[in-house]
């Protein structure tokens, strides 16, 4: 509704924002004090000087760098592949006429409702048969493409690529794949960037399947945080320093691309 908001609106939003930011600060705060202070409950509200020290101990407790490396590898592989396959399939559903396209698209939409998480038992059996359990392959392969990715790109490409442009390119003798490369890919770029970001973040945050598939010495960052938390006694300065550290990569990504993420959620909402 178009009206100038007053203090009440700004006040409520600011309060909400404070609530959104407070747990970040708490995590950093406890992570910056010594174990003794952290164990005594609420610490002084200003950060102590022990964050780097605690972070170093956390890094030594779990295979931190390996976990971060694995998470970056798995998440970028999943995101890149989802974008490529999502764009190809999305284009086919948006612009190409082929037998069964309506039925297949309905099937894609329906599969979005299928919780793939529940297929972990056969997935585990399959990965064991292939000899992939314990390797990052077992986490990458199931997330190579998602129904959401296909549907998201389809919704975008319906309007983003004019039919005339495709026809003109075909008239000029472009093969289908060259049309994709020279006409569709450039038009798809904004949506592709958003899909990449969301897939990256979702894969980065995933826990259930990586916990099952990966061993303690070859974890993703979420599985490693799980190990960090499961020590015999709780040293919250160490655990929260590690947690803060592990959140920094996505925080940086958010600072760099927050605008696109907001735009992406809002676009997806209207189109989906």
């Amino acid at each position, binding site marked *: 509704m178009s009206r100038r908001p007053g203090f009440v609106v700004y006040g*409520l939003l600011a309060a909400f924002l404070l609530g959104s930011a407070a747990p970040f600060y708490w995590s950093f705060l406890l992570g910056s004090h010594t174990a003794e202070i952290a164990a005594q409950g609420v610490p002084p509200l200003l950060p102590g000087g022990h964050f780097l020290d605690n972070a170093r101990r956390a890094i030594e407790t779990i295979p931190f760098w390996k976990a971060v490396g694995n998470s970056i590898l798995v998440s970028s592989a999943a995101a890149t592949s989802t974008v490529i396959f999502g764009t190809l*399939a999305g284009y*086919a559903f948006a612009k190409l006429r082929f037998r069964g396209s309506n039925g297949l698209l309905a099937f*894609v939409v329906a599969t979005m409702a299928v919780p793939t998480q529940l297929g972990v038992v056969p997935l585990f059996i*399959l990965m064991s048969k292939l000899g992939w359990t314990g390797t990052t392959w077992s986490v990458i392969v199931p997330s190579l493409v998602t129904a959401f990715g296909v549907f998201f790109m389809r919704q975008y490409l319906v309007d983003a690529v004019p039919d005339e442009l495709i026809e003109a390119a075909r008239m000029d003798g472009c093969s289908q794949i060259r049309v994709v490369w020279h006409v569709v890919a450039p038009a798809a770029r904004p949506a592709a960037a958003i899909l990449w970001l969301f897939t990256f973040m979702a894969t980065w945050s995933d*826990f259930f399947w990586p916990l*099952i598939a990966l061993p303690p010495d070859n974890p993703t960052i979420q599985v490693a945080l799980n190990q960090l938390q499961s020590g015999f006694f709780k040293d919250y300065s160490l655990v929260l320093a590690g947690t803060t550290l592990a959140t920094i990569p*996505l925080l940086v990504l*958010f600072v760099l691309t927050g605008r696109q*993420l907001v735009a992406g959620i809002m676009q997806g909402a209207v189109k989906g």
Partner: protein
Amino acid sequence: MGGVTRHLTWRQRLSRWDARWAPYLYVSPFFIVFAIVGLFPLVYTAYVSVHDWGLLSGKGEFVGLDNYREVWDNPYFLKQTVNTLSIFVLSSGPQIVIAVVLAALLDTQLRARTWWRMGILLPFVVSPVAVAIIFGSLFGDRYGVINHGLELIGLDPVAWHTDRFASHLAIATMVNWRWTGFNALIFLAAMQAVPRDLYESASLDGASKVRQFLSVTLPMIRPTMIFVVITSTIGGLQIFAEPRLFDQTNARNGGPDRQFGTITMLVYDFGWQLRDLGRASATAWMLFLMILVLAVVNLVLVRRIGSLGGDR
């Protein structure tokens, strides 16, 4: 296209073949991957669930519905089902209400609006595992800052990790913290798509702002409401990372008496702690059916509620 089939050159033939088969080629990666990691597992889960099937020993005898019966008779199944539903209701209900209000606040002529929007999305960057660790500390039974705050205002501290309802509340808070801003943006997009002249004619009819919100905005964003409710049903009933990491005992089953264990945690417990893939599969299938039923129930419910607000 018809009638020119006779004098096709090799190039034209190739081009036709290309036009005909390229679409299938493009959509095939999705269907191949989905068949392997989505469809096959779902069907095969049913197959595993009617067999004795050890994690290490592999397939055993066909046992019919025995696994289902054993899961059903297991006291933790009912308990963890109730926990899952309780956490789901505590998280999705307040979350949607707050998200809609937040979206209404954002749907004004704010200064620096992109910053506000980014700000409310911030919690989304924290993974559920990290959220659970951080909130596990905030909700600490003895030294947590929440209990500290409660004591400051003269209330008794709450046993967040041992009391059943309190633990559900704490876990629901984590889910709400991470997802409310995200859903608010979805509602905001829907609100901005509402034609402005509807508001103008409503205010000409003398409707107050609140009245306009109830009779114009809410009915108009109903489809979005349905979308959010369905996705949060599918996601919410599978909740795993939050309750698992909230548990500070070493068993990690959702508290000493499983006060906050969920169904997905039971799947994990059967399969990878008790090493019984048969019972894990039976549990997974029951959860799947439950999600299906609840998604449909919610769909009907939201439609009903939406049509009470205004007649469309």
